[in-house]
């Protein structure tokens, strides 16, 4: 178990994965651990603590050289980051204190709690070093093109209200849980960046990785099959002066955050056995349930894989092994404004070609490859996010919150999306490489703008 954990982690600690590592584990930055309170992340925190923070002499043998973990800490600073999602649900307990208690048992580890609505909180974003949000992008999810408008500063709503409007506008339970998963992951990535971490570790076990792979593929995420297992992520909408100051202090790494799942070869049962032997307290993760909502694709996949594993025990390892042999096909056109993963080229053209949604396209002519519609967000987001925002269920989902809390309509996007759009309007590079000035943008989107 510990061997599998180290085999999945240590080759990726050094900046160059192929270099000698037994005697020189030298990450370029700090470490952030994404902690949910579930089994996988509890085991992960324990293993990291035993190997790299407070070495357990029964596990860390006398082998190795000068830089072995027993002599020097691999990561100078370790931060455990917890994203509390209770405000996304009508009745859910805030477990931050409970989690804090568990984390504080590990000496030499910092605790960083985040609320899911911080994704929409401009103050949190700027405090963490994100580029200023000059205006807020509001989208209309009822339209498949996802038209957007840029609203001025004054119109900014509270982060909680923005979150609830966002999730109340999502069309299916599948979209809800996928959106929360995506927000959580990106929040963790930015938290890792802002704590100067070169590595972000997540507690996905072999079983949960197999579930997330199948679930992602079932939601159109085939292009991201590699990112589901491991990814190298770069923060590109952070303040340059913050980077410069850190660089001057000799802290800035100048690289990205490597997102690793070190338990990817360890099954859920092995994790459970470890937790039992080590007497770990697993507080568990609250079930993501919305009253009256149907079961989403994530939960269906989890139940299906669990059932299949009883008759075909090798299923989970086969899924992970098979997906490890796959690579994305085709080019990318930038980074998704919402989930920050690559946008495959031609998504909208593909969708238009395989299903006719209007009589406008001549039936006997090939579907034209149009240039990106600048009034629409669709060309700037990936297939999964577009599907999450627009793909409807057979019946409308029940309302999640009382109408006054979040009224679906024009919906805010997370701070990083706003910052990225601001970069586009501020003279930076947009996803398509074209610079769009604010007056031009306003002219394009004026029909969607609300009165000042």
């Amino acid at each position, binding site marked *: 178990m510990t061997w599998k954990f180290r085999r999945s982690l240590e080759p990726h600690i050094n900046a160059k994965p192929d270099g000698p590592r037994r005697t020189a584990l030298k990450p370029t930055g700090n470490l952030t651990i994404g902690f949910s309170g579930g089994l996988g992340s509890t085991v992960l925190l324990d293993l990291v603590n035993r190997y790299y923070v407070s070495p357990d002499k029964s596990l860390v043998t006398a082998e190795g050289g000068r830089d072995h973990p027993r002599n020097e800490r691999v990561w100078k600073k370790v931060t455990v980051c917890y994203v509390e999602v209770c405000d996304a649900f009508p009745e859910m307990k805030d477990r931050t204190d409970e989690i804090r208690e568990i984390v504080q048992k590990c000496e030499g580890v910092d605790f960083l709690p985040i609320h899911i609505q911080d994704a929409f909180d401009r103050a949190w974003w700027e405090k963490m070093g994100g580029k200023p949000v000059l205006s807020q992008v509001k989208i209309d999810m009822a339209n498949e093109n996802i038209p957007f408008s840029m609203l001025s500063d004054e119109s900014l709503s509270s982060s909680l209200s923005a979150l609830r409007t966002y999730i109340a506008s999502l069309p*299916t*339970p*599948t*979209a809800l849980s996928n959106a929360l998963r995506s927000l959580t992951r990106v929040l963790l990535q930015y938290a890792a960046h802002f704590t100067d971490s070169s590595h972000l570790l997540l507690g996905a076990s072999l079983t949960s990785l197999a579930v997330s*792979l*199948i679930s*992602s*593929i*079932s*939601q*159109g*995420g*085939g*292009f991201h*099959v590699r990112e589901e297992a491991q990814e190298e992520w770069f923060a590109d909408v952070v303040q340059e002066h913050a980077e410069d100051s850190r660089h001057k202090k000799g802290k800035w790494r100048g690289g990205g955050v490597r997102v690793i799942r070190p338990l990817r070869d360890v099954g859920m049962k092995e994790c459970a056995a470890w937790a039992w032997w080590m007497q770990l307290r697993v507080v568990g993760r609250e079930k993501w349930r919305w009253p009256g909502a*149907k*079961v*989403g*694709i994530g939960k*269906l*996949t989890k139940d*299906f894989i669990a*059932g*299949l594993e009883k008759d*075909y025990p090798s*299923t989970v390892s*086969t*899924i992970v*092994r*098979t*997906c490890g*042999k*796959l*690579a*994305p*096909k*085709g080019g990318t056109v930038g980074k998704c404004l919402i989930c920050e993963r690559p946008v*495959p080229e031609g998504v909208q053209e*593909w969708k238009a*070609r*395989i*299903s*006719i*949604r*209007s*009589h406008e396209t001549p*039936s*006997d002519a*090939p*579907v034209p490859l149009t240039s990106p519609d600048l009034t629409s967000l669709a060309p700037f987001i990936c*297939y999964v996010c577009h*599907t999450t925002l627009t*793909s*409807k*269920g*057979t019946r409308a989902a029940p309302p999640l919150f009382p109408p006054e809390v979040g009224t679906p309509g024009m919906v805010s996007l997370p701070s990083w999306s706003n910052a990225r759009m601001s970069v586009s309007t501020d003279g930076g590079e947009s996803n398509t490489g074209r610079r769009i000035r604010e007056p031009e943008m306003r002219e394009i989107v004026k029909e969607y703008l609300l009165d000042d």
Partner: protein
Amino acid sequence: MPPRNCALCNTARAILKRPKTGQQICKECFFYVFETEVHNTITEARLFNPGDKVAIGASGGKDSTVLAYVMKALNDRYQYGLELFLLSIDEGITGYRDDSLETVKRNQQQYDIPLKILSYDELYGWTMDAIVSQVGKKNNCTFCGVFRRQALDRGAAMLNVDHIVTGHNADDIAETVLMNIMRGDIARLGRCTSICTQGEDTIKRSKPFKYAYEKEIVMYAYFKKLDYFSTECIYSPDAYRGHARVFLKDLEAARPSAIIDIIHSGEAFEITDEVKATQKVQQTCKRCGYMSSNELCKACTLLEGLERGMATSAITDRARKRLDAEGPGPDNLRTIPYFQRGNTAPSSQVANG
């Protein structure tokens, strides 16, 4: 609730909700979008050339019945210039295939397309009834699948056609993507979303319904009042595929776009170059001349097992070793006729409508 207008023409009353898009549309617009999407699939992939001879794999079920109707309609409307045939395989399943073949014969009359029926019995010397009596119900789908694929190619070669089109729909493809991932069948995963496959020396094989939802095919047949035969095979279905199918139906119920999303996933990834380099090179079966990744093709291996009374020899490693230990088969072993394009043997019937 008052009746809604069609989301496409905005004039007629909407009578159905498209599973694929969720749009509420009228019957005429449904026919238009369904047929035009198939046409777009065909033209985008440049499947045919004018003058091509195309065999439609016809089982009498909903997919192939609708495919025959739509292919004929599109061929006439857009002047593809294709010469169409119906090609049916008779697996020899009493009470199942003999009934569905009656439907195909009616289709032949209705659409005025020539029909060819080729049976397992005349090609392999075995019917599925006989195979099941020897192997039981557990693994019989392996025999049927392998034999059908080769039989279609051989039937097409007898008709001297360039191309076979089959009624595989979006649900079938999505299900196959999931199955191949879960079973670790990386070779099939790499090609299962291709609209057109062509082995060396074999006939092109395409799936014009690749993006058509099964439910929409049924809707089309229903509104067009097409005559099709519907029943489950009387021999037990593939258990693993059954699990995948149920799962897919659950996904579709949760979010109807799941089917097309899985196909998009399958098209958005490919096998890494390192893995491709380790895959077996395609060769020709030394016994029957059909494409194969081993010395003997799967059909010949299965047939040899049947003939020698060790039917599971191509399915389990242990049975294969037992067969090998017994040495080469007798000289009078029945084998599959040598495969050649344009071959006319064994004796067959081509009925003209």
